[in-house]
């Protein structure tokens, strides 16, 4: 029996979806392991088959023009690989702990949702993906049922529902104007306010500075696996949709304000990360900064960084999160007493070397390519942000290690291998004497800052609900203003 290659894009969605209810039907761990393995293997097989025949267009149900338009291309390949890696590896780790069956049900649906967001070209379908993945995130964050978790989740729920309702309004007005929901067939001119209503909710989803201050609380309070899934795959969803939208002729000009916001996010993210003392919040703020790199990089280079960042940030969240769960301390001073066990520290270092952009590790390649392709102001901003990244990650490395028995947990190993493999295999794409010198100067200055500049405590004003709404509205209006001037 052979299946036509043109139906594979929708299989990418339907296979994890089909397995999801089975996780709740059979509530034993053995069957969960089998189902999870099957899901990951089938997903990888489908991605492999699709990779050989890229790009593929599919209208769901075979109804040309009236069905939902799906397309699998280079961008989808990178993102779907990232999603299945992060979620599959989190499953490996979660089997060692005591997670309810609901966790597997939700993450399996999340995988299906994320895969769909990587291939869909339909504005309304994107809205459904945004909402469904957010609903899953609310439940995953609140699963511990401490009131702090509940409040973090509820804050996120309110601001994102507010934003996505605006997105839906924009979709309605665009449909009224153009008579279609397919991104590739929208023609004519979109007024600046509608364009910004379309873009800003996606920025909120993709975790860049002024609009997504829900992220630090949510990512730091969630359990280890959930943090890794949220930071490694969930926040990448907004960026791929933004790349899709800005590669159409009608929204091409929106790329300039997005780059400004991304550069701002890259800078502010590291400042906040450096001055933070809670280890998981350091990582969360660094996600905000790195998502700035991704969005500034544009579809081609940014997607590479999204992949690399997803991998090493998951590794960092796993090592730090496991340590936090073992010792019960979040504060960096308390952790300095406890120290990492040796084996965990080695993996932490691999993650840190990746995110800091050291040659031979994956972050170096994507970061230097992105910096190389920016105009001058962007180069300066991103180099400053890289210096800040080195400084804030040096804080994590300064926790130190103690001798312990040697263990190699498989979920650490997968992420570490990919980080090193990508870093060595593709090094000639980034290797020029300029990039090498630049990366060493960045590391030197970053370490110097870490040794000399004492972090200050910054009050968490930006994460209050009222302030979050103001940040959102200000971003919306400034986006409108820039688009209006450009017109």
């Amino acid at each position, binding site marked *: 029996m052979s299946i036509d290659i043109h139906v594979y894009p929708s299989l990418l969605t339907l296979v994890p979806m089909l397995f999801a209810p089975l996780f709740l039907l059979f509530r034993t761990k053995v069957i969960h392991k089998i189902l999870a393995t099957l899901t990951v293997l089938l997903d990888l097989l489908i991605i492999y088959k699709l990779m050989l025949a890229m790009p593929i267009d599919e209208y769901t149900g075979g109804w040309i023009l009236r069905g939902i338009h799906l397309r699998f291309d280079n961008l989808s390949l990178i993102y779907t690989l990232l999603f299945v890696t992060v979620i599959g590896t989190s499953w490996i780790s979660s089997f060692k702990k005591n997670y309810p069956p609901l966790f597997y049900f939700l993450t399996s649906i999340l995988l299906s949702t994320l895969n769909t967001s990587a291939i869909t070209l339909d504005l309304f379908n994107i809205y459904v993906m945004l909402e469904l993945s957010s609903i899953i995130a*609310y439940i995953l964050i609140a699963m511990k049922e401490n009131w702090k978790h509940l409040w973090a989740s509820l804050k996120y729920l309110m601001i994102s529902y507010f934003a996505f309702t605006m997105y839906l309004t924009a979709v309605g007005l665009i449909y009224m104007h153009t008579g279609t929901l397919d991104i590739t067939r929208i023609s004519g001119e979109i007024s600046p306010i509608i364009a910004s209503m379309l873009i800003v909710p996606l920025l909120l989803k993709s975790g860049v500075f002024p609009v997504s201050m829900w992220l630090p609380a949510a990512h730091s309070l969630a359990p280890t696996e959930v943090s890794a899934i949220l930071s490694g795959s969930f926040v990448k969803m907004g960026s791929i949709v933004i790349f899709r939208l800005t590669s159409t002729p009608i929204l091409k000009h929106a790329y300039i304000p997005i780059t400004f916001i991304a550069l701002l996010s890259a800078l502010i993210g590291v400042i906040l990360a450096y001055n933070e003392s809670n280890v998981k919040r350091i990582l969360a703020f660094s996600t905000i900064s790195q998502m700035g790199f991704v969005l500034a990089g544009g579809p081609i280079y940014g997607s590479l960084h999204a992949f690399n960042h997803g991998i090493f940030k998951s590794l960092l969240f796993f090592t730090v999160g496991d340590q936090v769960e073992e010792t019960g301390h979040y504060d960096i001073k308390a952790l300095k007493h406890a120290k990492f066990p040796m084996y965990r520290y080695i993996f932490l270092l691999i993650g840190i070397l990746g995110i800091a952009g050291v040659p031979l590790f994956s972050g170096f390649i994507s970061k230097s390519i992105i910096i190389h392709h920016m105009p001058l102001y962007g180069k300066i901003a991103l180099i400053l942000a890289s210096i800040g990244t080195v400084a804030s990650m040096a804080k994590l490395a300064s926790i130190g290690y103690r001798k312990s028995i040697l263990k190699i947990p498989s979920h650490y190993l997968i992420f570490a291998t990919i980080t090193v493999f990508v870093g060595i295999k593709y090094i000639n794409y980034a290797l020029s004497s300029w990039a090498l010198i630049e990366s060493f100067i960045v590391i030197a200055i970053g370490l110097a800052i870490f040794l000399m500049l004492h972090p200050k405590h910054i009050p968490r004003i930006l994460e209050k609900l009222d302030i979050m709404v103001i940040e959102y509205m200000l971003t919306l*209006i400034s986006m409108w203003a820039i688009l209006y001037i450009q017109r």
Partner: protein
Amino acid sequence: MKNIRLISVILFGMFIVMLLISAETISYIQPDNVTGAVKDTGAINVIAAYYLGYRLFDTLFEILVFTVAVQGVVHLLGHMPTLEQHKPMREKAIIIYTDLIFGASLITGMYIAVAGHISAGGGFVGGIVGATGAVLVFLTMPMEDIEKEFNHTYMAIWEMCILATIFALVLLPIFIGMYPMKNFLPLGTPGHIVSGGIIPIVDTLIGIKVLIGAVTIAQTFIKHRGVF
């Protein structure tokens, strides 16, 4: 704090005014979304043709949203202390009438779900109509009876089975060389109750699923918060 909110409201107001101004200028041409829909899907209700035909992909996620919410509510409320005194209304007249309405609403709901392709209606509406009657019955029953007659575990199993059936049904066409989510059954005469291929089947399944889901949510809320 009040000042901050005032600034937000002013910004929001500016945004709304701009939105109204730009909405004024939008021209509207109605695209032709009706022609050919009956021939493609066999449903004379073109909205159902879109909902369960052309855009079935969206609808699958919609079912998932509902299921995720139900499972989330059950899981999150599961650890909350249950209400010690659930005071049902035990007057004879109320019991008889709620039972009567329950039966009527179940039948109406099922009709709306099954006939979604030939008249206004559909699975979601039908399921919710049916669940309304069940909620009325909950007002009059003691908690033990509710838990016995609407057993939680059984309902969850049924819900998941129906979910898996729907997904299997939309995946089935790929084994006979068609696109997934294609209407692979014979379409029949448009306008008859047996027409539209898989549309009435999926509609009925959605109806039962939504009924179970809504009943589960209502039961969980009543268990932990009471009826008043």
